């Protein structure tokens, strides 16, 4: 999980076949490599992205038999990035974010148990 390279100073947080999330400690932000682009998210926007993606009712979309295209536009207020995703991509992005936040939670536990106590 923690494979920092000297050049970029990005740490792999989590990756799947379709994308990856990296953390940049120096800039205190995350880079999301997904849907053909690498987008930078600060703390606020990253949480907003998670909220927006989790709010999509995938089951309802799967059951929806109308002729509307299965496309979701994820737009985050005060953020430069916008995603226009198909249903399969939404599922992938959700999987990516879920894994990412589990890893961040794990990182938090490690910090709590190992570093905080040894200070």
């Amino acid at each position, binding site marked *: 999980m923690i494979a920092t390279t000297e050049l970029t100073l990005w740490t792999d*947080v989590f990756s799947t076949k379709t994308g990856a999330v990296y953390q940049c*400690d120096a800039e205190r932000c995350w880079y999301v490599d997904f849907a053909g682009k690498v987008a930078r998210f600060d703390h606020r926007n990253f*949480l907003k992205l998670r909220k927006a993606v989790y709010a999509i009712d995938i089951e309802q979309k799967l059951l929806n038999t109308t002729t509307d295209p299965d496309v979701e536009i994820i737009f985050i207020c005060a953020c430069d990035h916008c995603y226009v995703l198909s249903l399969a991509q939404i599922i992938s992005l959700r999987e990516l974010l879920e894994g990412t936040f589990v890893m961040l939670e794990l990182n*938090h536990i490690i*910090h709590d148990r190992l570093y905080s106590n040894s200070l």
Partner: protein
Amino acid sequence: MKDLLRIKSLISSDIEALLNQQVKKEAFSSSAYLAMASWCNRNGYDFSSEYFFKQAEEERHHQLKFYKYILDMGGNAVSPEVTGIKQEYNSFREVFEDALDQEISVTNAIKNIYARCMKEQDFVTMEFLNWFLKEQREEEYKARRALELFEVIGEEGTGRWQIDKHVGQIKYDSEA
């Protein structure tokens, strides 16, 4: 790898969501009390109306306390939408029954947040909530006492007039 989420916020996202729910609950309570104040005023129960105006003010104060705490801890406080406030009541007594139900539900909600904090060992939020737990003692006592007046005075004759007069005097000054 730095723990960026922790650097930005003292409270976890779960606790933040619960606290935001509580902000909404307190806002709802405040609006519900305002509706009660209006109903009492329209029906000639001026002391009770005044009592509910004060309660509405208090709930608003609680709401802001939660709101500011979330912000101070680095979270995102969400200004709540409040809808579905009951405006009409069938009887004077029903107003106070609803008020007690409201307070019981607030106490339960705070207990739930406390339980979650214990699970996460979020002692900071637990300490913050202690004030509210103590406050709920007073709130529930007052609501229960008001209903008690219906029993001891009775609604017959000038009973409701008497009850209204005494509601304005309800106080909780226990040192327990």
